[in-house]
């Protein structure tokens, strides 16, 4: 009787371990097959097939989709790289910060650089200010500069705020009304304030913002 009970207990404890590879294998196979099929479609030259691939990939487990997207990220097709960056953002895969930074800086297609800016701020907001500032100031395509400016606003950090104010001042000096308007909108998004072209007002607010941020950090430390 004791041996039967012991055997039953051991069997019940070990069953998940014994059974899981087989069950997992059943689940893995269709996922892997779908993943392969989707990646093949993604590399297609047809936009419709690329979109179909994106739909499939969004429905698969993010943990498996993320690493698989590193390959199409190097595609020669601009649209594939762009769709892939969007997919990375959608699945929340954050293990390719360096590559996304490189794409923001160097990719030949401005719509890809624009998407890289969005991906960077969504996946790697810490330390994104420098890369976004560089893109906002130096990129040769206004769409990328615009995207980087607006992305800086979504960070809502003192560093991003300083960067935006500096850029607004430079844009006003240069008479670049379009980008100045974008920067003002980004500052409003960042702060909830509508100070427009009032650089001194923005700087004053930034100082207060920093003080509040540092006080908040001190409070958190005290609580810890």
């Amino acid at each position, binding site marked *: 009787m004791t041996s039967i009970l012991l055997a039953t207990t051991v069997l019940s404890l070990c069953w998940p371990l014994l059974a899981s590879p087989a069950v997992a294998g059943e689940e893995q196979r269709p996922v892997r097959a779908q993943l392969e099929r989707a990646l093949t479609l993604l590399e297609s030259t047809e936009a419709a097939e690329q979109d179909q691939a994106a739909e499939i990939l969004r429905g698969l487990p993010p943990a498996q989709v993320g690493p698989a997207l590193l390959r199409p990220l190097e595609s020669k097709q601009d649209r594939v790289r762009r769709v892939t960056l969007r997919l990375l953002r959608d699945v929340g895969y954050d293990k390719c910060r360096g590559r996304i930074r490189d794409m923001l800086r160097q990719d030949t297609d401005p719509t890809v650089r624009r998407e890289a800016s*969005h991906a960077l701020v969504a996946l790697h907001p810490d330390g994104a200010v420098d890369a976004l500032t560089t893109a906002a100031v130096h990129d040769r395509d206004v769409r990328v500069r615009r995207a980087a400016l607006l992305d800086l606003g979504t960070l809502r950090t003192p560093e991003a705020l300083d960067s935006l104010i500096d850029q607004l001042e430079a844009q006003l000096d240069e008479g670049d009304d379009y980008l100045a308007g974008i920067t003002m909108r980004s500052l*409003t998004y960042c702060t909830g304030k509508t100070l427009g072209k009032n650089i001194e007002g923005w700087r004053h607010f930034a100082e207060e913002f920093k003080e509040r941020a540092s006080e908040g950090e001190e409070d958190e430390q005290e609580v810890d």
Partner: protein
Amino acid sequence: MTEAMSDPLLPKKHREAGSILVLILILMVPLAGLALALVTQGSTHTRELGANRGRAAALVNAESGIDHALSQLLQDPTNLDLIQETYPGSANLRYLVEFSDLGADALDNDGDLDVDEADEDGFVSLTSAGSLNVLGYDAAGDPISENSHFYLKRIRAIGKANNGLPGFPYAVYLGDENAEVDFNGNAFLIDGNDHDADGNTTAGAAVPGIATVGDPVDIEDQISNQQSDNVIGSGGEPSVHNTASLPLQDYIDEYKASADIQFNNPSGTFTGSLGNPDGPVFKVTHCVGNLDISGGAVGAGLLLIEGNLEITGSFEYVGVMIVTGQVIFRGGGGVKRVIGTCLVGGDFIEGAPHDEDLELSGTIDILYSSAIQDDLSGSLATFKILSWQEL
């Protein structure tokens, strides 16, 4: 009498009696003069008082004429018909108002050397002549006799007609040539077919689902093949067309003074009512800064946002939304529906927070409605007096 007065034998009292009479006579002359002067002055004062009262009545009457004209223009800003009115209940008061359309009078009214140019459009000069005639007016409305009892005052006012909002023939307008749109999933609809206030399709002409000031291809490129039939209207799918730029900030500046609901850099989330979609009952809402709406908010009328608009949860709005920044619809919380049009200065975004201008996520319908736009425009038509001068 002369003898008695001159007789030295008479007592002194009797000798001086005549001299008092003479003195009285002498004094009466200036007194009579003084009295005459006083009577004349009193009469003049009375006449002056009457004249002042007549002029005041004429001025009030001229002002009544301006008020009458204002009422006529508020009913129909294009009605510049002459007004000739005898003051009710009094036959000797009358006003007459003449209009002049400064945008079509072949004159350089603003002194910029251009005649009837665009910035003179909508300006109207109103000249009101208010009069009081003691003898009244004849059947033709002319004073019976323009004698000293006729008083006339004239006022000239300059006003500006506002014909309400122009038509916006699209469901969504993107005012930035580099605008981005971000559509997530397929549970959204941007529909340029004409709709009534309840969201039912009507027989009106279809317009573009999305109108952009940039290259439509840039927008189409951001819409996947699976989402093409979620942006419908005139032309093929997706219904995206190019359009001329709209002065969104000018619209906001024009109507923000009429705001029924005002937000200044709100820090919280709004969950109430911005008008009533049933009816609908329109309200003008103006927000400086970003506005976050959540919790089943509803509204109708004109929504003016100088910043970004972010909507979470269910939302129903009937009217025109003008947003200088981004419009962000976040997923979850039921259906979001806008009937009228949505004018976006920035991007249109649905779902996760990033920087596209129009972002759509969840079940969202943005339906074009010419009827709603017309109703709203009619309710916003105004005429404002800008200056006032007595001639």
